[in-house]
């Protein structure tokens, strides 16, 4: 359909700005029902909160659903806004992993969630094969929560330095000031080499590995890490 200014909307209807959005209920994103039809049994729950649809999925099938949402011409979720984790003070479901997807052609927003029950490994599939932008987002979720993303090409810390040993800072059991004393934290921080712009791990996978000096190649081959 084409609106007055000549813009073509492949979704059909001319989009309107939602008004008077209720807290619960309200219009459901049509993609939620489409997922349930296309993948029976994968959807555990669908919530609509403040006009935004949340689909709670089964842990094993996230990548499959995301790939279909990205490729299907009726949905075309071409933009991955965020990948993050949430920890709750909930004895049954302490962890959730959240994906925010946006479809620019259809003007839709969809939130996918996976609940990780107590005792389950903190592992989900990486959506990196579908969205390359998931690389750093998943590294951040790993850095802050310790979530493992299966299939991620390079799952390392991104915000904290690589030798950070105190744990995962956004976990509920992480003390706000960290686990070590201030002097020990400072000692470990000062031990990092500020001129090492790339870690040994990064250098070892770089294309320029062969151009590195022989001693550095030898050190990388011996498994040396930057900093301490």
């Amino acid at each position, binding site marked *: 359909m084409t609106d007055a200014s000549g813009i073509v909307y492949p979704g059909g209807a001319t989009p309107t700005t939602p008004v008077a959005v209720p807290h619960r209920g309200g219009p459901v994103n049509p993609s939620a029902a489409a997922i349930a039809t296309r993948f029976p049994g994968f959807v555990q729950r669908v919530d609509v909160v403040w006009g935004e649809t949340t689909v709670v999925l089964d842990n094993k099938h996230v990548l499959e659903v995301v790939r279909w949402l990205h490729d299907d011409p009726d949905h075309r979720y071409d933009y991955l806004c965020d990948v993050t984790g949430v920890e709750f003070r909930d004895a049954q479901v302490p962890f959730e992993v959240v994906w925010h997807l946006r479809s620019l052609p259809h003007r839709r927003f969809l939130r996918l969630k996976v609940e990780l029950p107590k005792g389950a490994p903190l592992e989900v599939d990486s959506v990196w094969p579908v969205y390359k932008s998931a690389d750093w987002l998943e590294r951040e979720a790993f850095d802050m929560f310790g979530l493992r993303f299966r299939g991620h090409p390079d799952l390392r810390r991104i915000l*904290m*330095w690589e030798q950070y040993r105190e744990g995962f800072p956004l976990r509920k*059991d*992480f003390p706000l*000031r960290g686990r070590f004393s*201030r*002097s020990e934290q*400072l*000692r470990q921080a*000062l031990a990092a080499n500020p001129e090492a712009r790339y870690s040994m791990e990064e250098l070892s996978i770089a294309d320029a590995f062969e151009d590195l000096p022989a001693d550095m190649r030898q050190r990388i081959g011996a498994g040396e890490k930057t900093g301490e």
Partner: protein
Amino acid sequence: MGLTKGLTTVSYQPQSQEGWIATKLDFLVNWGRANSLWPMPFGTACCAIEFMATAASRFDLARFGMERMSFSPRQADVLICAGRVPFKLAPVIRRIWLQMPQPKWCISMGACASSGGMFDNYAVVQGIDTIIPVDVYVPGCPPRPEGLLYGIRMLQAKVMRERMGDAAIRDEMEPDPSSRLYIPPPVIDELSEPFGNSVQQTRSGL
């Protein structure tokens, strides 16, 4: 030694007395240094915005001789740390400080640089004086440009009081070679003690 024959040997005890020439030379050198401080801006947060405002035309840092921002530490006189310093930046600011030639001074601008401020958490250094020696602390969150100018005037007054006879003022910091800390760890822990509202944090007790 004919030149010094007949002259009394001046014992150069800085605490006792210094000759007319030495004091006047001190004054001249200090006057020159105090009025041509070139700042090395180390802006990491909102304090850097106030620092830019201080350097801009309304407050005009150039009136006090800071005509040129020196973005290279090799040509800088005063390191102005404006903003919080996370632990990841600690080796960087240490390296910048060591790259600056003597004479050099340091201004810690704002609550976060001076004490960690509201960021009493796992990621932020609790005061840059645990990494490098600081001459002037400017309080505020962020300090107004007038506050920074007052701190700079205080630093100039400090420079004017320096005497060449006092060798200790030019001492370079010598960090401990193994831990790279320049003050003992218990002192750092004491400096980083929580204070004010951050004492009431309950989440740390988990």
